[in-house]
Every structure is written in C-alpha cells, then in structure tokens.
C-alpha cells in the first residue's frame, strides 16, 4: 500500500502523521486544542481524524508505533495528556480509551531541569516524566526486551553527558533510523539531522527549545518502491540551525536535505530564514543564503507545507508572508506547490506516496452532513417565541 503523510489543521502548531508502506505509524508532535475537542463546536475534530487513521491492537487499544516530540513547546504537545496514554500499559483504561505510544522519540531536552530559561507547559512535563520512566526501565535492565509501550529512543546525545550511560537507546546526530517500535521496518530511513549541539557562540536561552528541535529527513517506500518520497521536518528550528546544517552537509552531501515535501519550520516563520525581524518594518529583512540553501534542496515537483493559521499579507510572524514568498520562490514560483493547513481548516492535508512518487490526495468532498446542513441550526443559540423587552 502507499505511504501517506497527513498534516492536521492545528492552527499555529504542528501535528503530522506518517503512515509507512507497512501500515506502521509515526506521529510527529500534536496540538489538539480545547476547541477541537468540543463536540458541539464547529472546529475540526483533530483527535477524531487522527484516531480514524490509527490501528488498534488485539485488545482494542488504539496506538501509534512511534511518537516524536520535536521539542517541548506547547504548540507541539498540546493535548498529549488528554489523548495519549502515559505510563505502563497495564494502567491503560478502556473507558478513557487513550492512544498508546509504543515508542517515544524524544530530544535529550528531557534531561534538563526546568529553569528560568526553560519553562514547560503541563503536557511537556508529562512527556518528560514518561520519557524518564522509559529511560529508567532501560537503565535498570539494558538487555531486557522492553514491553509494549515502554520503548524510547533519544534523538541526539545530551551535551551534559546525561546520555552517556544509555548508548543503546540514543541515536547520534547524522545517524539513520530504520526501525519503528524496535521492528526493522524496511520501508523508511530517517536521517537524524538535528538537534545540533550548542555552538560556541550560542547562549542557553529561551530559544534553546527551538534550537533543540529534532530534525528528520525521511526517505519513504511507496507501494514497495524504495525512496519514492522524501519528507523533511524540523520542528521550530531557527535560521542558525539551518545555516549550520548547510555548512555541515551542503558542500559534500546536500542530498541529505533533499525533499519532495517540506514542513516549513516554525509554522512558516521568518526566523527560520533570516536573522532580521519581520514584525519590525524598519528591519532589513535579509534572507540568510545558507539557511535558505538548507531548505531548498527540492526534488522535481517538490511542495512546501506551512502548518499554521492562514497566511495574511501583514507584519505578523509566524506565519509570515515573507517566508511564504521565499518558499514559493523555492518551488519555482508556483503557488500551487505551496500549501497552508490554515487554508482548509476543516480538513486534513494529505499526501500519498505510491510507487511513482508522491501525490496530493483529493480533499475529501464536503460530507453530506455539511451539504445538507445537518446540525446547522444547533450551531448558534436561536431565540424562539416572543421575547418581552425589559421584563
């Protein structure tokens, strides 16, 4: 069967599901806002759309084989606790019916202590807690085969040596992964491009979270055809990271950055392409050539996706109209090759990777419910009967 990449409409946030040729699933980030969970509201039911695409195990538990948290920001992990089972599998509750994460791919950020520079939202905290639980199990018995729901891989080595004693579950940067949930899948190879270690001239600051984003370049098998599609995703990595990536790979192996589909970093933020500010009109707004190089290694027909609100022609960032223009330029000036999830807030944006390469899947036609207007009357409270003024 073909592989698919599904981008969920989650406003300024990321939530991407990669379904491999084998049917295994890799979820990258989640941003399930409260309004998306409101059954009476109009917002797209993101969690429902995700669940529809996930398999269940013999016990009826819905699961993802892998969940990647690119970095612990709210717009990448919102809804984690509400929708995902955290803790040992035997604590899974049928009534809660949460999604099981069979294997976590986490950045080594989980080993940092919260500080003034590093504040975490509750969902990020529970991710860290669960990651530490799984790492703890590994530390206790590195040679045991982990139980279902206990696996974890740490993406990149910790700069403070916190991962030195757990080499078996650490994937060093510039290494590849082709296993999902400990199984040799054979239908994907993910090149771990980041998080890059801190550079000498960098400061540990609030942006550290963004800098520490996991950057993966997937090569996906489609309908049995190896490398039928390539997908580059890099969380909220900023311009400095992309500049350094070009320095690292550009001269000798630019193909490591090559993609058919790029998830534009940080919700189409100007800061992934430029050191200047977009919001400040007095700023020069120069594009960093090397960062742009990293993000422009397109295969023929490649497309770029912004996972963000609708992109308006104004000073806001992200999403940033300037970044969009730059990305459209990267795809040969063809606006048909740039997509924004905010343009279709009622539907997922989906690409299918078959043996001939990737294609955009048809937008599902409006369901009969919306065509017939079923439930439209329930959208807003309407007065019935005569209202007596002043009484």
């Amino acid at each position: 069967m073909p592989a698919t990449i599904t981008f969920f409409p989650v406003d300024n946030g990321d939530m991407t599901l990669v379904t491999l040729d084998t049917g295994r699933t890799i979820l990258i980030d989640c941003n399930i806002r409260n309004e998306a969970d409101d059954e009476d509201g109009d917002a797209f039911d993101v969690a429902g759309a995700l669940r529809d695409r996930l398999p269940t195990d013999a016990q009826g538990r819905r699961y993802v084989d892998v969940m990647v948290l690119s970095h612990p920001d709210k717009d990448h992990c919102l809804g984690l606790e509400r929708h995902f089972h955290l803790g040992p599998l035997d604590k899974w509750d049928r009534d809660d019916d949460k999604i099981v994460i069979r294997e976590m791919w986490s950045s080594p950020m989980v080993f940092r202590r919260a500080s003034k520079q590093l504040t975490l939202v509750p969902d990020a905290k529970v991710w860290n807690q669960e990651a530490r639980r799984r790492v703890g199990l590994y530390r206790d018995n590195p040679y045991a085969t982990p139980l279902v729901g206990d696996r974890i891989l740490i993406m990149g080595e910790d700069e403070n040596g916190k991962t030195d004693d757990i080499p078996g579950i650490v994937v060093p940067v510039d290494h590849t992964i082709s296993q999902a949930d400990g199984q040799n899948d054979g239908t994907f190879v993910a090149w771990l491009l980041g998080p890059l270690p801190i550079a000498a001239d960098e400061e540990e600051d609030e942006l550290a979270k963004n800098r520490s984003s996991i950057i993966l370049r997937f090569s996906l098998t489609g309908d049995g055809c190896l490398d039928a599609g390539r997908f580059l995703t890099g969380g909220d990595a900023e311009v400095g990271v992309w500049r350094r990536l070009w320095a690292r790979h550009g001269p000798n192996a630019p193909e490591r950055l090559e993609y058919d589909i790029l998830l534009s970093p940080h919700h189409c933020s100007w800061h992934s392409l430029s050191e200047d500010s977009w919001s400040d009109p007095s700023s020069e707004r120069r594009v960093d050539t090397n960062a742009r190089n990293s993000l422009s290694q397109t295969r023929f027909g490649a497309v770029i996706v912004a996972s963000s609100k609708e992109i308006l022609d104004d000073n806001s960032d992200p999403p940033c109209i300037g970044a969009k223009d730059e990305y459209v330029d990267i795809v040969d000036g063809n606006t048909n090759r740039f997509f924004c999830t905010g343009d279709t807030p009622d539907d997922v944006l989906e690409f299918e990777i078959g043996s001939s390469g990737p294609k955009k899947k048809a937008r599902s036609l409006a369901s009969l419910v919306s065509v017939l207007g079923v439930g439209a009357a329930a959208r807003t409270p309407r007065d019935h009967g005569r209202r007596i003024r002043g009484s």
Partner: protein
Amino acid sequence: MQRAIRVFESSIGADSVEALSLEDDAADVALTIEVPMLLKWRAQGHSDNGVRCEEVVTVRFFPSYPWSAPRFYLREDFPRELPHIQPGPITRPPEPCLVDGNLDEFFMEAGLVGVLQQLHQWLERAAEGALINASQGWEPTLRHNLVDDLVLDRSWIEQVVCEQGGSRVYRTSFMQTGLVEAVDGRETMTFGRVDAERVRLQSPPSEGLFQGRLEDGKFLVGESLTLVIWAEPRGLPVIADKYQPETVYSMQALLERAEAYQMRVPLERELARLSSELARNELMTVTPVGVVMCVRRPYHLIGTDSTLELVPYYMDIGPQHCNSPLAEQPDIPVVPATHRDAVSQSLLERASGQSASGTFAMLGCGSLGSKIAMHLARGGNSVSVVSDYALFQPHNLARHGLYDGLSSGKATALAKALRRLGQPVVAHEANIVRWLGEATGVAALVPKGTTTVIDTTASRRVRDRLSSLPTEVSARMASGATFGNGYGGYLLIEGNDRSPTLDDLSTEYLRLGMEHPDLGSLQHAEDEGVRPMEVGQGCASMTIPMSDSRISAMASRLAETVVAEESSIPDTGRVIVRMDDETENEGQWIRQDIEAPIVVPITDGDGWTFRIPPRIEGAMRDEVSRWPSVETGGVLMGRTNERLKTITIVDLLDAPPDSVRSASGFRLGTSDLKNKISDYFERSGETLFDVGTWHSHLDDQGPSPTDRNTAISLAAERPPPYGMLIVTPSALHAIMHHPDLE
C-alpha cells in the same frame, strides 16, 4: 437548479463553481476540479497523458432534472484516447463514463455529491492512466448508452478471423423501429442478427436482400448484410494496442478507423462489391448494413479469454447512396452499435455463473421434467433428447410452464423452448417403456454422447427398464421425483456399470425412510401418492395435486443437484433426498452413497438373483464371527422385482431367541419373529418385507440336502420369490425352490 449549485459550492468551494447559462431547456454550470496527481505532474501543470491539474468540467442540467442525472462534459481538447469516454462524435465535447451502469440510477441513489465524487475519482484515474486495469483485461471500446444492437455469435467469428482474406459477408436479419424519445439525435434503433449464412457478393443476385417491409405499422423488418472485416496477418498477427474511444459517425470516420486498425483494404474491397450489389438492387428506404471490425488486442478482454474485440457499426444506406461507390461518399451516416452475443451455451453459462459439462437426455417432459430441463439448458448444459408421449391437457396448465396449445405433445413443446436457447434438441413423442425395451429405441432415447439420463416419469416400469439396460449404454441413469405433496424430492444416481441400479437405489431410498423418521413420515404421508383427480366428466387423471410454486421449488433444487453431481460423478450410486419444511421454509438434505451390490445368482431360481450390499454381507460375517463353531443366521429384509427378477436386500433381522445353533445346522426360531417382520413392513410404508433367510456354513460348501428340503417347505408356505442365502467362509450361495419348475 439553485439547490444543485449550492451543493456544488459547499462540496468544492464557491470559487470553483460558475453558472454559465440558465436556459429553460438546459442549464450549464462550469466546475473547476482540482485533480489529485503526482507532485511532479502538478509541477508541470498536467499529467504525462495530458490531464490538467485543474480541469474545467461543464455540467449540463436538462429539464428532466432531478428525475435524471446531469451530464458532464470535459473540455474539447481533453485527451480522447483515454478509455471510459462515452461514445460520441468528435464534434461533441468528450463525456466521461462515470459509473459502471446507469448514471441516472446511480444519481437517484447517491445524489449529486455521489456523482461528483465519481467525477473526481474518474479524473484522478484518468491522470494516472489507471482507467484501464491491465490485470483485469483489455477494456472493450466503451459502448454504453448506444441504442443499436447487433447480435453475432462470437465463437464462430473467432474461427473465421483466423482465415486469410480479411473479410466475409453474412446475411443479417434486421428490425428497425422508432424510439419513443430520441437518444443523441437518433430517432430509430436497429436490431440486427448476423446469420451464419455467408453471402458472396457479385455472384448471382442474392434473393430478398434489402427489401424491408413494415410490420404492425411500426417495425421495419428485412434482410440485409453485415461486412465482417479483420486485419490480415502479415506473418505475425496485427495487434491494435491503442485504446480509441468511439467517435465514428460517418463513412469517412469509419474508413479512418479501419485504417487505424489496419483493415482499410478489406473494408474498401467489400464496400466496392456492396456498391455494385446495391446498384443492381433498388433500395426503397434507408437500410442498415452492418460492419464488424474484428480487432486483435494485446491481451484478453475483460471477463473473457479472447483477445478479439468485435467493434460493430451500422451504415444507414439510403436510395441516394446507391449511384456511386460507397467509399467515396464520406457523409454516409454510420452509427456505432453494441455487440450482443448470440444465444449460445457459453453465453448462458456465463450469464448463469456456472460451468456446464453435461449432456442430458430427458425421459418425461411433465411439469417436473420440463422445469429441470429448462434449468439445465439455461445454465448452458446440453439437453440432446427429450421424450414423452403425453399430450397437453387443460389441467396440465396448473403446473406446466411450456404450454403450446392443446393436443400438442409435451416433448415437442419442451424441445421448442429448448431450441430457443440454442439447443439442437430432438423430441420423441414415444412410449418410453416400449422404446427402452428395444435396441433402436434405446439408441434414440439415449443417443451416444449422453452423459446422464434423467428420468422424471415417476414410472416404476421406466425405472426397471433403465435398471436393466446393458452396460454398453454408457450414460449414467438418474431418476428424480417429488413426494410428500412436493415437500420432498429425491434424485437417484446409479453407480458405475449400472451397479447399483436405479431399482436397488429405490429400495435403499425406502430403507433411508426408516433411518430418518422425518423422511419416513413424508414418504408415507397419508395423502401422498398418485390418485385419480377429476379432470372432466367421467374422466380422471392419475396425478398428485400440488401447486406450481411447490413443484418449481423442488425442480430447481433437483436441477441444482443434477448440475453439482455432474461435475463429480462417483463410482458408487447415490441417493439424494431433499425435504422442505412445510411451515418454516427450512429444509434438509440427506445424501447417501450406495456401493455396488454383490450379485448372487440363485440356484434353481429361474434367473432370480440376490443383490446384497457390501454392508449387509459385512453384517452377516460379523454375526458369523460371533458364532465361530456353530452355524448361525437370520432374516433378509428388502424388496423383490418381478421384472428384473431381483431380490434386493437392504437390511437384516436377527435370529429370534429360540433359534438353535449347532455345528451341523441352524434352526431359525419363530419367537416374536412374525411381529417384528410385520412391524418392519408397516414402518417402511408397506414397502420392505422379508425376502428370504440366511445362515452360515462352517466350511465352503453350498446348499446341503437339508437346505433344499427347507427351500421346498418354504416355497410351499410362501409364494416365491423367497430365497435362502448361505454364507460360507469364502463365498455366498443362494437357493430357492420354484414349485412351477418342478
């Protein structure tokens, strides 16, 4: 209309919908559809075969909307060589074929949104070139929605196109009639049937050709021709591997299409001959002349194992076209037609989803027999001979489906119906019993090549005749009947080499009734059985009152069974019983394989034989092994047949307790024996009874003097046939005393 536009808008976005014109007779709406396609094609704006990323589709609503679906038209320059484009002249924008079947019906079911979904899917597949799935086979040129039909037997055309020459001309009967409603501007429809009679043009003028006559004031009926043309192989066969949608609506387009298929030369040759033929005939009216292009495809057509696609057309030739060569008149109207297979066994087989294998001879063409015969023939099975001597009587109409006028024969009526299904069947209005007694009669009723004879006469005499046919008659004999007022039906199929016979099996069928109480009570239902029914004053017919529905229900089950059994005939005989539940419409099957009996000729028996199933011999030997040092025995239960001179044994009764066993002899006791026998007789519906005794000998010796004396005394008390069977360690012996032979 406004609602339809609203549906489009909410489905694909208001920006993508544009009302072009809203007239009374038709309203056009343009839809801009984003076609999902590979990213590399999106980048270039179109797929490799020319489907664009965004296709503008014109939707035309007619006044009949919403009682009919709107029609969808693609842009004029949409690539027409894609399959699943509706046939139509090149001057009309291409129209995708959105559903396999009737779009109007689909629309009623799925609504506008459903049709729109089909359109999206069609465009997506078109872009991928996936409208034809090669693994399923070649998709024949789409000919949905055409009004004209040409019936042609594909099987003989397949033979013909292997020959040299590239063309043949065949006589064709046609019928032309006006349509209630014009379809695509066409106001008449032609139905033609190509006959296998080959016509050589330019030899003496063909009789009665091109002379249409009006029937019933509405049908133009007549004889015309069909030109069958094909590409002559030049060493290798000519393969047309490019799909071309149907756009041929004129002589010019016809010639061009023939050229594309590399068969223009034979077409022009036949057209030239036809021109001179027409010059000699005076056409009074427009006459359809068929053209069938036989196109060899690279792989088999969907649903068949043939690579030959038949592409038929009609040329509408009028009096004005007869004065100059046809090929030089590019504007002669031509219409594509739909090919229909002539009725043939293979067509019926395909339509029934069965694979037929048998050739059947039917004995009895009554309500059961005729229904079974029609079921078999409709499934594509051959029915070669049907025989019955009876004529139709008014009361037959209650159940017989093939009434053909009073005083006509039932066999003749059945044969007539079978011939319509393409069966070259022979009918014999014969006295079956008498014919089966003579070699010539047997040869007529059961011709060579018959695989199975199905006797539905419910006549014991017929069954006996079939049981005594020589084994040289290789067809398998089967006998089917209903019982229990039509709630039961059985099929007896004899074993290899006529053993067991139908007679043996009918006795086993009665024994099964004792094993299965449900069957027994249905077999011997009080109101069961043939009885006289008043059919006129002072006139009665022997029949079982039963509704047509009931007998049809049983006939269909028996016919299914016949077909199923035909594909796997066992060496043994077989008794198959079906019982329908009267109240709950449920039922059960009983199937019993019956092994060939051991035949033991009876000494002094005037030709009588014992027929002993192996299981009965086994039971006797079991009893013998229980008494290894003394003789033992018991009573034989079964039935006798005067005509076949057979005593068929199906059961044993144990020796009564007062029997005496010793090394020198066995004395059958009497205690309670009489009761047991009468009880058995009653339980079997008074059909199975004691037909002899058996006892063992300790050594391999046949009848002893004592045995002979006993036989004499038995014969005195009990009229023959009543035999004695002797079981020795290695053989079976039988004696009977026949007072008449003394």
